[in-house]
């Protein structure tokens, strides 16, 4: 079969489709920037003294509500705040909570680290790594996600301590 006038175009289209697939796939794989929402200053101030200011989009609103209703008994510590500030942070967290497909799951104990997606994303991390002094807890995102404080969980910014 001789190359018709459209053969060249077919080639161009093939390249374009590959390029489009490549770009969207790369964007999907690399879009682990959980918090593009600028954090409320009070949220960082009050919550990040003890742990990372977890991006609100990592839990559904119902989980945040239960967490904020129980601050005096917060995973083994008293994290109580005055009522006005508690309300303000609750409203902000619920407004920016996860609403996507993942939000159908309310992880057990309202822990981000118990969510099915979290366990799946971390299934290649060896058990010994979790026990390292520098890691200690799966809630210690910054131990490996070097840009976690900026809400950036991308693969390229992971450094697993030894």
């Amino acid at each position, binding site marked *: 079969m001789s190359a018709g006038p459209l053969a060249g175009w077919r080639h161009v289209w093939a390249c374009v489709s590959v390029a489009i697939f490549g770009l969207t796939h790369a964007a999907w794989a690399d879009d682990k920037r959980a918090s593009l929402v600028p954090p409320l200053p009070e949220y960082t101030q009050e919550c990040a*003294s*003890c*742990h*990372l200011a977890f991006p609100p989009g990592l839990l559904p609103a119902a989980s945040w509500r239960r967490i904020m209703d129980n601050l*005096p008994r917060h*995973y*083994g*510590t*008293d*994290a*109580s*705040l005055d009522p006005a500030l508690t309300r303000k942070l609750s409203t902000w967290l619920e407004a920016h909570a996860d609403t996507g497909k993942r939000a159908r799951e309310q992880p057990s104990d309202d822990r981000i680290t118990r969510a099915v997606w979290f366990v799946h994303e971390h299934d290649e991390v060896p058990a010994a790594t979790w026990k390292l002094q*520098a*890691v*200690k*807890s799966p*809630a*210690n995102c*910054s*131990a490996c996600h070097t840009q976690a404080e900026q809400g950036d969980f991308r693969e390229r910014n992971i450094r697993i301590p030894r």
Partner: protein
Amino acid sequence: MRNRFHPSLRAAALAVLVVAVAPAWSAAPSELLQGYAAQAGTATSPQRGEQFFNATHGKEWSCASCHGTVPTQAGKHASTGKPIGALAPSVHAQRFSDAAKVEKWFRRNCNDVLGRDCSAAEKADVMSWLIGLKP
């Protein structure tokens, strides 16, 4: 060179400056300590404060579990591992400079360590020890 401002004007400017800066002074660690000591009505003891800080009080954690036994150095949260800045004001100037913040953390942390509020005397003892620590 002659000063352009009349002495009384300079005095007034100084007075304004003193008033403007006073709120920061009023929250100096030593003044907060005096407040707790006055409330306690007993003499404070840095030695007692050190013992209190390093001992457990019927629960799993002591103050030192998170703040370390040498509070001129950074501590580490006992469950999350997050670094906690040094508690000694000689190292970390913002420590004990904001009365509301100090009360908030005593309320939370005393509940975690003792399962109750700390008394004014206990707060004064611990603060007097921390304030006296040199870098």
